[in-house]
């Protein structure tokens, strides 16, 4: 029962987030729903004792949602609405981080402030994962690093090219 309640809560939040992406007509709000879904999944990873993956998932989802909201707000949302979107994102982040902290402790009734922080990943877990990555999956690690570098460089190049084209169009 103790394990089932957090799972049910986080699964419901993840499904609500996914449903929000499908149903919501506002693009920026879709990004917020995606953030909620990803943070709920991070909580589920924590329940499975995959703490490192949970932390990486949280950080990645916040960054991805930030990128999404930045691009959306600069294109489609009026300036007056940007602060409200950012506030919604911050509130969702704080709420779900606290919830994940409480759930990682294992019991719902315990005080949130006494719970260990979500980033308190056991050291042994990380060292074992690092050893596995460097010993058995070295080529995969190198390929992923190359892919990440290529992705960042190509995205920066495309953005620069698009902004140059936009400046030229405005001048003409």
């Amino acid at each position, binding site marked *: 029962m103790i394990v089932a309640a957090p799972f049910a809560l986080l699964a419901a939040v993840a499904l609500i987030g996914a449903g929000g992406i499908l149903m919501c007509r506002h693009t920026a709000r*879709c990004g917020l729903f995606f953030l909620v879904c990803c943070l709920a999944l991070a909580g*589920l990873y924590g329940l499975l004792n995959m703490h490192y*993956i949970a932390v990486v998932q949280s950080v990645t989802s916040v960054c991805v949602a930030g990128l*999404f909201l930045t691009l959306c707000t*600069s*294109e489609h949302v009026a300036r007056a609405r940007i602060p409200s979107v950012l506030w919604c994102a911050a509130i969702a982040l704080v709420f779900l981080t606290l919830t994940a902290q409480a759930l990682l402790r294992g019991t719902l009734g315990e005080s949130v402030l006494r719970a260990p922080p979500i980033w308190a990943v056991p050291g042994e877990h990380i060292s074992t994962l690092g050893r*596995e990555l460097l010993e058995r999956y070295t080529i995969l690690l190198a390929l992923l690093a190359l892919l*990440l570098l290529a992705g960042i460089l190509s995205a920066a190049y495309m953005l620069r090219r698009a902004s140059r084209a936009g400046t030229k*169009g405005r001048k003409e």
Partner: protein
Amino acid sequence: MILPSHYLLLSALLFAVGILTITARRHPMVVLLGIELMLQAASLACVALASWFQDWGGEIAVLAVMVLAAVQLAIGLVAAVACGNQQADRESHP
């Protein structure tokens, strides 16, 4: 008691919602989010099975999927914004 089948069921549901998002929505950014949702669903299945079988391979596979998803979303979003700008330019200067 939560079994891996519960996680796999949730993963299947999330995957189905991702497919529905791709087919039902036309906005390129939302379609990208749908693809990202499908990748997240696959990651959840990997993590659940890795936890059940006590295997590090699943966790490392999830790390790889996360990198792929981040790169895909970064390039996709920039491409979507660039396409949107070009379309807006064409509409303003036909």
